[in-house]
């Protein structure tokens, strides 16, 4: 999925090919249009922006080559005074400055202003309320993302599920400091600022998992505050949403049951909520369906039982600075709690 130029998307097909080829060629230095590359776009607005980038890059290369070429020429004819061909003509030298320094840039810059800041900007502007099929509330926390689906009980963290080919309005807010939601392949970034309700549009035709990251410095674990957008066909999205809206499933098996007791007994419920149980903590992520997530600690480690146990036992070792305290659990206790949480599908 990562680097393949996805199948055409109507009139936007040429752009897609252009970008895919270009990203493959230009950025293979950078690990081949990596998982967070803005030049491997998977949405219309990301396409527009990457196209804008390729045009600006092209123009820049021309300017740079021209200027450095002139400097090289100056080196080659360092012994002969005057301009090439025309010789000592102060008026022409002045003309060069006015032409290359004022006239040409003026034309280019005014064009760029119209093309990007007046025209292209409308594709990445916030969607007007009510103009989209659905809204998702994403709230930044130090250092994880809370995801809620208005009109549904569903609450999750660090993984935003959206249906493909659907205009989704993401309402980006913060619970503490400034964060910035940035999933480069799908949309421009949007800062999450106290007291503001900022919005961006998510709308991709391609099912897939798109990784993003907090891009405004937000403290110790800023580097480990990643997010994934999971775009899936409408049917499977509906199924996921229905499941996510249900209360947490009961523990299955002995060790899970004792894990369940440890969860409340050792104070995990002080921060975490398990919907439909007495665990009603509101500080950390909702864990009602933890097992349905692919990763832990905001995409720091994969969500396997071993990693989960390790994370529960010593959070700081996995994510330095994280607010999740070390509860002094024994390895065994951590294993039991992990066994329980791994059952929460």
């Amino acid at each position: 999925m990562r680097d393949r130029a996805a199948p055409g998307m109507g009139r936007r097909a040429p752009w897609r090919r252009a970008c895919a080829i270009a990203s493959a060629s230009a950025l293979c230095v950078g690990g081949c249009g990596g998982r967070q590359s803005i030049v491997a776009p998977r949405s219309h607005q990301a396409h527009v922006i990457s196209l804008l980038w390729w045009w600006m890059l092209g123009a820049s290369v021309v300017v740079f080559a021209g200027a450095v070429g002139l400097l090289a020429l100056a080196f080659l004819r360092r012994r002969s005074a005057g301009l090439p061909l025309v010789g000592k003509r102060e008026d022409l030298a002045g003309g060069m400055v006015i032409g290359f320094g004022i006239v040409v840039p003026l034309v280019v810059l005014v064009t760029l202003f119209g093309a990007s800041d007046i025209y292209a900007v409308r594709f990445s502007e916030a969607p007007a309320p009510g103009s989209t099929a659905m809204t998702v509330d994403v709230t930044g926390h130090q250092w994880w993302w809370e995801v809620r689906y208005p009109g549904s009980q569903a609450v999750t963290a660090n993984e935003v599920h959206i249906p493909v080919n659907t205009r989704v309005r993401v309402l980006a807010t913060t619970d503490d400091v400034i964060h910035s939601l940035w999933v480069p392949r799908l949309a421009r970034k949007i800062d999450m600022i106290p007291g503001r309700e900022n919005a961006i549009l998510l709308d991709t035709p391609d099912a897939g998992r798109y990784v993003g990251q907090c891009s405004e410095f937000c403290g110790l674990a800023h580097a480990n505050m990643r997010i994934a957008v999971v775009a899936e066909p409408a049917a499977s999205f509906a199924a996921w949403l229905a499941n996510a809206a249900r209360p947490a499933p009961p523990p299955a098996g002995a060790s899970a049951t004792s894990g369940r007791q440890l969860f409340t007994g050792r104070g995990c419920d002080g921060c975490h909520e398990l919907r439909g149980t007495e665990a009603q903590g509101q500080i950390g992520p909702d864990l009602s369906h933890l097992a349905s997530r692919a990763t832990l600690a905001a995409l720091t480690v994969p969500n396997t039982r071993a990693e989960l146990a390790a994370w529960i036992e010593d959070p700081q070792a996995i994510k330095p600075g994280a607010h999740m305290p070390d509860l002094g659990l024994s390895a065994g206790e951590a294993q039991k709690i992990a066994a329980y949480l791994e059952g929460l599908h």
Partner: protein
Amino acid sequence: MATVLSPRARRHVELLDHAWRERRGLLGWLTTTDHKRIGLMYLFTSLAFFAAGGVEALLIRTQLIGPAQHLLTPEAYDELFTMHGITMIFLVVIPMTTGAFGNYLVPLMIGARDMAFPRMNAVSFWIFLGSGVFLYIALATGQAPNAGWFDYVPLASKQYDPGLNIDFYGYGLIFNGIASTATAINIIVTIFKLRAPGMSLNRMPLFCFAFLAAAFSLVFALPALTLATIFLELDRQLGFHFYDVAFGGDPLLWQNLFWIFGHPEVYIIILPAFGIATSIIPTFVHRRMVMFPLVALAELLVAFLGFGVWVHHMFAVGLATMVTVYFAAASLIIVIPSAIQIFAWITTILSGTPEFKTPLLWIVGFIVFFIVGGLSGITLAAIPFDQQVNASYYVVAHFHFVIFGGAVFPILGGMYYWFPKVSGRMYHERVGQLSFWLSFIGTWVTFFPMHLVGIDGMPRRIYTYTAASGWATLNALESVGAYVLAAGLLLVIANLAVSLLKGPRAGNDPWRGDTLEWATSSPPPPYNYAVVPTVSSAYPMWDRDDRERDAVRLDRGEGVLARGHETPASTVQDAEFDEVLAMPPHSLWPPLVGLALFVGFVMLLLAHFVIAAAVGGAAALLLLAWHAEAPREEAGAPVPGLGTPGEGAAT
């Protein structure tokens, strides 16, 4: 002067030597008001901070050399990248340019004998030194600022950063701002008032236009930062609510105030570099700058438009497009003054006969880097694209090309260019060129790949990244480049240090330079010029007959002003001789005032407000005593060779 003097001329020079004798030893340096010694103190202090900032940078690059490294804890990493930014901007580039180059060279270039306010010049150095020590005490005690150099609230608020870290930031920058403002005012008044008679605005070296523009930017931009940090400390120490949404404050107030300062700041950093470039190029290209008036304009216009672009740092905060376009438009047009200068430089080099000696090499390197940084800057004025790469490594690449390639390269070129003038000795050319090529390659390898990782989605200020991100190769490359760059910089220092002791004698004018500083001996005497220079163009050293006329006038004792510690002042626009200023000699008050302010700010930091107020009162008394040494008055009598004071208005 190198030329043999007639007995009469020598008598005048002896009088001057007597009138301008400097104290020796440590006390001499402590109490000096000589712009050249103050400039040197600025130079060495900011070089020390440059070393510190460089070490911080190398630690950062080493931590990022591969995925999931553990050289630094997140706490240490946050303090290091914050201190790296603060150091390089407030403790290196500004003092190095306005402080060292401005102090040392502006009076020489305009044919003056000192700055307009010599004692204020000294006090601004001591305050700068104090602020630097203040900030590094924070690092030494493990509570350095750790919220990034632009220190966004609420992360920087008491709630999320309870230690002293941010208080060091707030008071350190207010403290530092006093010094910068004083220096800026001093430079402006010096350029307005102390130009040698005949040096009308259009005959002023472009170097001075650049420093004038930078100084004006400082005067008008710094108050915004001071205000923002005052609010910050009121919030943190007294529980005010300027930035606290819960009580009707707004975090964006900080961002606006900070960037109202922060963007002009970028031009404050780059403008002196323009000035250095425009004084090195004509010398080594053996011709005058093409389009002198446009280059002068470009330098001033950049400073002016720089005040209307700040929101392009905030395109992602969710403002309305119809607000942000105002800033986008200005951000695009501000490119044109830079384009004018770039093509003026290139055309001058192209149509002259360039000698690619070390100083010119650094300037050519600067032009190349500045073009790259300028082009990436244009892309950041395209709102949608900026909203993608904002706060990513693409931006880190952009401003390092502009600040390191654009500002530090000319500074190093300037250090080579004026080394003979300041030290009287010549540096080693071969080693000089080697040091350039090492730094040039190092800069490319360090900063260019940052564009690519930025495009590839790497945010700035992350202390670690995963192997899966695909950023490892480029980051390793960047770190290697950083070591190469460090080697190049060390070679520069080594070259200059060794040449200082062993270099061959340079003479007054080793380059056949174009501006006045090359007219006097190397190093210049305390009074700079035995005779007030005659000026009839912007390239006075290329008007040989004027220099010969000066020799004659010295012989006749015209325009020598040997009666005392004096320098002539002239009218602002046409530089007609206007009055004779008696300059205050050495004074002990400046270092004392600096010390008092240092103690005062430490008390503020520790929230001992009463003691701080008492220390402030002491500082006020020191300033009162300061004025006991009023300069000797002038009678306004005609001065042979200069004319009658005040006659300017008659023409």
